[in-house]
């Protein structure tokens, strides 16, 4: 049984539908990244999924913001989506990823502010 089929609570279904509606607004490469993220975060176990909602929501928010910025998807997620998802869920390698995100943040700020000045 897939995760999707295990969700029976109607409130959860409603929330997932809202997520899907948001995902439909994304450009194609972002949409396919969303599919991969879903697939990966639910590999995390056997549960109702309620705890994963905020994680999925934040990930979707990230995709929305990044696509609005016109950022290439690889720049946002890196090339290893499963590892990225493990980090989102606080699994193995989360700490390393957080360091990477930190560096990425400061690098992006420096680059974009530099462009602004020049």
């Amino acid at each position: 049984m897939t995760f999707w089929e295990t969700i029976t609570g109607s409130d959860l279904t409603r929330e997932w539908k809202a997520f899907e509606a948001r995902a439909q607004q994304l450009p194609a490469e972002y949409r396919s990244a969303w599919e991969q993220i879903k697939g990966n975060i639910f590999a995390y176990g056997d549960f109702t999924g309620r705890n994963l909602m905020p994680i999925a929501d934040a990930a979707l928010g990230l995709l929305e913001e990044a696509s609005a910025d016109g950022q290439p998807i690889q720049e946002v997620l890196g090339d290893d989506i499963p590892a990225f998802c493990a980090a989102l869920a606080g699994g193995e390698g989360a700490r390393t990823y957080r360091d990477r995100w930190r560096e990425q943040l400061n690098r992006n700020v420096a680059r974009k502010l530099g462009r602004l000045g020049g």
Partner: protein
Amino acid sequence: MGIQDVIEGKKQWRAHVARVKALPPDYQIVYKEMQKYLFKVGPIDLSEGRLLPDIVDFFEEGVASGKGVLQLIGPDVAAFCDDLIKGTRTYADVYQESFTANPGPTEK
């Protein structure tokens, strides 16, 4: 639910985005990069607190005082973000705790 509903519905989220857009370019750049970082790290204050609108409040005050954004928050933007959420739990923490608190799945 949802971070965007949290800021009480779509209308409020749009108002929030409009406030961000009204900031000077350097502030906008930093705000957007911070938001992306925070979405990844996932502090529960994103949905349970007013973290994002509060940051904009703070930035608006900085603009009014005539400071550049890095003068306001310092050059290490990531360190500033980490200070903002220091001592708070992340969604990942909550998720991980749900296993230790509840060994075995709890099907309703």
